[in-house]
């Protein structure tokens, strides 16, 4: 664990302690399971976006991908009667393909990641609404794919499935980012793309790979979230998810300049955001203040980090 990871973990623990003191409901099994489920769903795509951020890029498209793929998944299963396996494979492949398209535009045409994925955000949202004719999609009572519903809303030994899936994804991502050759190249490119290229790193493949990973993980969470909500309204489903992901990555220690961040930090950041939302719920703060509370707390965190970080530097030298 890096020092930053420890800081985020302590922050998360402190926040949990505060909420638990203010509202005993926080520690109830149902509430904790709920939070864990949400952390799982948001954590998966946050990991993908975090990996993109490590390369010095950004991915604004995950929320819209979630809506488009959710709509398509519902139509494949319910309206077109595709076998579940084929539908899932298609959705994941589509997520990867969308990520690959972003990656190619960014690395081959040298377009800015912000612009490419912002256009993605608009495009996929529009496509979702058009394909669904703006009507809400779902899976009805879900006969025939009960196991899929279980993967989204079920649990094993009391631990919600999405959380379990996120742990598996997180472990794989940890190996990829912190232990593999690709991961080392990811950080090298994030810090200094030119020097990486001079060292023989395939910088374009490394960067494009990050967007493919992000698209793929967005597809995986899209499946879980679609089954969990069972009601995909194309105009609002997945709204702001990209911002949750970016916030999670930044709270978790990623630098938007690239080259910095850890998988554990990103997951802890995602958890922190969900506990904050839970706090708004439990403490009877008006739901309309949901985002404001998150924004305020992250901002206070950033200011504190800056102030204490400075103080630390001063005492050191």
């Amino acid at each position, binding site marked *: 664990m890096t020092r930053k990871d420890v800081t985020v973990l302590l922050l998360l623990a402190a926040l949990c302690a505060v909420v638990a003191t203010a509202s005993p409901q926080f520690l109830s099994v149902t509430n904790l399971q709920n939070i864990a489920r949400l952390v799982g769903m948001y954590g998966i795509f946050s990991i993908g976006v975090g990996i993109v951020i490590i390369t010095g890029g950004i991915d604004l498209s995950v929320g819209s991908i979630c809506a488009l793929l959710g709509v398509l998944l519902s139509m494949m299963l319910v309206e077109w009667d595709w076998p579940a396996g084929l539908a899932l494979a298609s959705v994941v492949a589509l997520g990867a393909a969308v990520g690959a398209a972003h990656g190619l535009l960014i690395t081959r045409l040298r377009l800015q990641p912000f612009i490419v994925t912002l256009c993605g955000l608009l495009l996929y949202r529009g496509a979702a609404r058009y394909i669904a004719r703006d009507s809400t999609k779902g899976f009805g009572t879900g006969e025939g794919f009960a196991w899929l519903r279980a993967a989204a809303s079920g649990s094993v030994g009391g631990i919600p499935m999405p959380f379990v899936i996120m742990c598996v994804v997180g472990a794989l991502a940890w*190996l990829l980012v912190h*232990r*593999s*050759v*690709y991961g*080392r*190249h990811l*950080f*090298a490119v994030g*810090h*200094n793309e*030119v*020097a*990486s*290229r*001079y*060292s*023989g*790193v*395939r910088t374009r493949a490394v960067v494009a790979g990050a967007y493919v990973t992000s698209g793929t993980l967005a597809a995986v969470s899209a499946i879980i979230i679609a089954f969990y909500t069972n009601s995909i309204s194309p105009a609002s489903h997945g709204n702001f998810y990209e911002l949750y992901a970016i916030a999670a990555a930044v709270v978790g220690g990623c630098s938007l300049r690239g*080259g910095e961040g850890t998988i554990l930090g990103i997951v802890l950041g995602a958890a922190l955001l969900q506990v904050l939302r839970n706090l708004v719920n439990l403490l009877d703060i008006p739901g309309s203040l949901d985002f404001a509370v998150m924004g305020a707390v992250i901002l206070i965190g950033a200011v504190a980090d800056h102030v204490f970080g400075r103080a630390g530097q001063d005492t*050191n*030298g």
Partner: protein
Amino acid sequence: MPVSLLQMSAISKRFPGVVALDRVDFDLSAGEIAALVGENGAGKSTLMKVLAGIHRADSGEIRIDGATVDMHGPVDAARLGIGVIHQERELIDTLDVAGNVFLGREPTRGGPLRFLDRRRMHADTTRALARIGVELRTSTPLRGLSAAQQQLVAIARALSMNARLLILDEPTATLPSSDAARLFDVLRDLRSSGTAIVYISHRLKEVERLADRAVVLRDGRNAGMLPRDALSRDRLVQLMVGRAFEPPSIRPEAPAGPVVLQIERVRTGRYPDAEVSLAVHRGEVLGIAGLIGSGRTELAEAICGLGVRLSGRILLEGRPLPIGSARDAIRHGVCLVPEDRRRCGVVAEMSIRENVTLPALASYARAGLVARRLEAEAVRRITTALEVKTASIETPVAALSGGNQQRVALGKWLALRPRVIVFDEPTQGVDVRAKVEIHRLIRGLADQGTAVVMISSDLEEIVAESDRVAVMHDGRVTGILSRADCTPEAVMQLAVA
């Protein structure tokens, strides 16, 4: 008797773990050029940063015109008439000359509306440039100027802020020698008009030519002072390293090995009309000399798969190399130690370990996962062989001295057993002792059978360290000198051809 403009006495400054300055004295009179000399880490930059208000001394006293001053930041220093020309010039590429000269203190008109007073800016800039005998269009964007012209703009900027004391940090590091001569003329003119100049340089020949006095620092202390008539390169080096300098031993002319790298009629993007053909033999150091902008770096990059190669062939041991990227070149054992270390040579934020294994990480990996013990062992072998001075291989490269950074930039290729290594300005910004050691490493590589290409603007280095020297001018090779014919004068003749 000149007036004492600046007196710094018993200046001390410590950073965590190091005493950067230990009771250093330095003084300067109006109309004097004092060279500040010392190895990297000797304390020159720290001393000048104290004078420029960037660092605060822990103890000691700074007097200007005899009065004690207390500086809290660069703004105070500027107000006291101290101007700094940094090594990395702090000017803005896209702004024009006038905009840079007045950056941060633009004249305004229109009262509270504070419109830019462009006419005054341009007129005053023309005047500031005229003071140092320079004529430039003040509306040219800075990126349209040569490095030397940009430097003159920086000097004009300092003078227009009424600087009486100029600090120049390695001003000729990126200048071709003809432009350096021009700069010296400007500095001499400024001296005769009463400006005091601190000149920091590793190029001792320049110090010899220019300085009225040289102050030598070693390990954060005053090591000695040489007045004009005692100033010589050998004496300087002696004070810097604390021992007598051994002149390079003359090697016997080595029998040439077989040709490893053959460059055939290669044209690069910068000089599309010029073709270059060269051969590099096994075990030789081929020097490439020439003025800045003569196409040397472009050639190096074309060889190593980084630049544009318009036409021509590159043969490695007789077989054409299909080089389309640095990666292809590296796979065939053709590696570049680039000129711009921090931008191209190393990932400064990452550790020595991560930098050294960056090109060949896959060979320390099983199933795509890095075997960390294997990696660390390999890195330790390389850092030991190259004598990288560091407590740990986990130290970020940014924290190392220039010489040690260069060792890391070289070390990352060693595990690949390269057949050809191209060095672009291998000892730029590196202190005297590290320079000698880097030369030894380069020679060692050649002795082990590597074909070495060494680009350098340092004539002494080119002449002393190369087996043969190819001289370039405007993208063409104007001559190839064997060891016997290679003198600084002969190289310069071909370089300005």
